[in-house]
């Protein structure tokens, strides 16, 4: 009897990893890993397919939760203590600056990665049947990420925070009928003050993270239930590819007709569910491509995690999170700017408040949600969906251009200035 080995085996109840059974059990006997299948398709792991952007976003979220909880120990959501606590983090808390830097830079990184992840999913056509609703959840998660970043922006209670939130919430108030009310509800008053800070804090540390966690779980679970990651576009042979097998009511579309279903292997509850489930199936010829999640997927994911963590740490070591003077409602900076990801919106608002602040963004969000239900072209091959790709590219480029203009080319009074004007000492 070896008590240590017994204890070990009571925790990890699986065969040795050298066996195929052990490799499978490593996945499905582990509560944390069993969202993975035991085997994954080798091509799906390729970096050039997903760039691991979904994973990176999730890892950034983990960093944010961890560093955020640590920061909560030092933070009091009430002015002027909130600002003093920032100074204390900087000057007296052990690793305080590093902690705050990591939180700040991860937050910006998460906004960027969520957006890039969305682009990747669009360009590979991965929102198409059966993954339509997971795209919708993804859009909601994107909006929640913006909400998290926006609520967190106010918490340092410096000039940057105060005026960014003032401008940001003003943009929201342009919505007809409800705008002003929603703003008042969010701020707990008519201006950004103590109650706004408390409300943003509660949203930032409790409400929004809980929602993001829940929806992320659903998002992951649906990825698995929809047959894992979509196949890389270069694996789609041609227009007639029997990629998708659908059951029941689906209109007889090309894939179903072309499929010789009996030769395919499906993973599902064969004995219980009659017919074929709605998810991608693997043709016999592709079966050869499948590899065990351990070690192929897990090491790659581990590398993605470490790459994310090291990048954030390196950035946090060398670049300080900004902190300006304490918030002063009597002293408006010129120009007062919203957080960078809303500067495209602010740019639009500067031309037309109602159109730019309400109608265009509302339509943009609705259009994003509607994409999988409007784009009925079943093919995912880029060659078959040129117009969809062009349209989305225009959307992305316009967004980026607006944000760049708002960030770098707008000076006092929201006039156009060259970004290097302040360097030349024009003032």
């Amino acid at each position, binding site marked *: 009897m070896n008590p240590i080995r017994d204890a070990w085996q009571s925790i990890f109840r699986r065969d040795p990893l050298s066996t195929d059974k052990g490799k499978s059990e490593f996945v499905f006997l582990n509560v944390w890993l069993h969202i993975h299948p035991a085997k994954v398709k080798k091509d799906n792991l390729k970096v050039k397919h997903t760039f691991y952007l979904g994973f990176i976003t999730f890892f950034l979220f983990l960093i944010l939760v961890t560093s955020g909880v640590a920061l909560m120990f030092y933070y009091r959501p009430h002015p002027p203590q909130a600002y*003093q606590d920032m*100074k204390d983090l900087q*000057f007296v808390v052990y690793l305080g600056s590093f902690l705050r830097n990591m939180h700040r830079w991860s937050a910006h990184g998460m906004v960027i990665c969520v957006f890039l992840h969305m682009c990747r999913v669009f360009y590979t056509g991965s929102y198409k049947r059966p993954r339509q609703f997971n795209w919708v959840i993804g859009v909601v998660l994107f909006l929640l990420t913006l909400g998290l970043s926006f609520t967190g922006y106010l918490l340092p209670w410096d000039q940057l925070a105060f005026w960014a939130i003032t401008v940001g919430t003003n943009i929201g108030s342009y919505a007809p009928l409800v705008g002003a009310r929603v703003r008042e509800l969010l701020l707990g008053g008519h201006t950004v003050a103590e109650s706004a800070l408390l409300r943003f804090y509660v949203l930032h540390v409790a409400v929004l993270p809980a929602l993001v966690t829940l929806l992320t779980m659903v998002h992951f679970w649906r990825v698995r239930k929809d047959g894992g990651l979509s196949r890389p576009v270069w694996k789609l042979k041609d227009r007639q590819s029997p990629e998708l097998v659908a059951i029941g009511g689906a209109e007889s579309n090309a894939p179903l007709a072309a499929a010789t279903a009996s030769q395919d292997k499906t993973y599902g509850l064969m004995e219980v569910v009659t017919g074929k489930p709605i998810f991608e199936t693997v043709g016999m010829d592709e079966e050869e491509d499948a590899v065990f999640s351990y070690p192929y997927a897990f090491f790659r994911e581990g590398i993605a995690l*470490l790459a994310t963590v*090291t990048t954030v*740490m390196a950035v946090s*070591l060398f670049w300080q999170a900004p902190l300006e*003077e304490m918030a002063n409602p009597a002293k408006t900076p010129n120009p007062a700017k919203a957080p960078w990801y809303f500067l495209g919106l602010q740019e639009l608002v500067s031309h037309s408040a109602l159109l730019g602040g309400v109608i265009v963004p509302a339509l943009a969000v609705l259009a994003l949600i509607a994409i999988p239900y409007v784009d009925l072209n079943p093919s995912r091959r880029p060659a078959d969906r040129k117009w969809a790709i062009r349209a989305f590219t225009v959307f992305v480029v316009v967004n980026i251009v607006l944000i760049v203009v708002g960030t770098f080319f707008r000076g006092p009074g929201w006039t156009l200035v060259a970004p290097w004007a302040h360097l030349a000492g024009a003032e």
Partner: protein
Amino acid sequence: MERRLPQFFFALSLVALVLMLGAVWQAAAPSWKTYQEEFHRLESVGEPNAAAKSDVLNAALVIRQDLLPGLQRVDRCTTCHLGVEDPTMKNAPQPFSFHANLAPHIPAKFGCTVCHGGQGLATDQQNAHGRVAFWQEPLLPREYIRASCGRCHKEGEVPGVPELTDGRRLFESQGCRGCHKLNGVGGTVGPDLTEEGAVHRAPGWLERHFLDPNTVSRNSPMPNFHFTKEQARALTFYMLSLTNEQMGTYYSSVRLIPSAGYGRQLFVEKNCIACHNIGGVGAKNGPDLLGVAKQHSPGWLDEQLVNPQLIYPGSSMPDYDLETNSRKALIAFMASATAEDAQTILAQRSKPLTAEDAAIEAGKQSFSRFGCVGCHGLELQGGVPNPNSQGGEVPSLLHASDDYTKEEVVKIIQNGKVPPVDNPSKPAAPLYMPPWKSVLTDEDIHRIADYLWSLQKKKDAW
């Protein structure tokens, strides 16, 4: 590739570890710890006892801070400036040297930054001295530090800081209030100066501005008053003291320093000379006050002032209901007063005015108190340049009664007046008459008008 995955994974783990150590290293050696170690070495030099010496050398390195809720600040300056209250550190190099003449302003009660400026919360030199972006209160240059006395001592004379008193006097006598608001009273032509010391905490800028407004603030409508260097310095001191910050009860209780000078002022105001005399000069109804401070303790004198009946029942001295600082000031004056003082006080006592003259005098005082003289001149001669207004300068008021009726003048003071332009294609004249009806009562305005008319009468009498 697959074979390399674990290698890659562990290599990245190593990078993560190195970065973690980097962060720890960055956080482990803050400069204040180095300073404290150096200070401990400095302290241990003169220590003969070996055990005590090692105690000093191995003393814990801790952040020291003065929590000052009454001044709304936390000062950590003494974390590095360890010798501030240690006279043996008189000749020690900075940041350890002793602060001479500190009492009664000890760090525990006042901190450092309220006088010196800087960022009290910071624990490294650059940040603490406030010479960083987004900190509006850097250390004040040595010659301006005394201006901070005026942050608490807002009234009366501050010993050793004549600039503050001069600045305050200049501000009121030169009519700055005509254009600038201060604590809610004043014109609207220039910026409100209530928080000027917090907004423009730049003594060099302020001083150059007073010498010639246009050199630092181009096209400023503020006329050049041709102040001397001393006057500009005094006004700069006064501006730096205007921070309008919230202060705890203790700090606001010392608005007035109970100095002998203030005591003398009270002595005149309360007309003490009507009963008392100093060294025989004055009235003989009450006791001679010469040397009274030598015969009695300050406590005794204070009690006497609080309740004159307590020690001498039936005393004819009234109870003046003076506050603590006023009593202290009077006692300080009595300790220093001489017969010559009494002589000058007696000489300055003016005859009571007639009711009419008193009203005109009140008008004159309002005229200067609300800053009318800033633009219209101390002698009402006008002449402050006002480009593109008709005549090119602010009008003289000596002939107001020739051109206007009294009612018209009252209307102009109430509602203000924008001067008619000379050339409509050029920008409007920078100076204008602000409306005063929200600041001045109708009575005040009528008195000012009466004052203007009284000058006219004087001229006619010629």
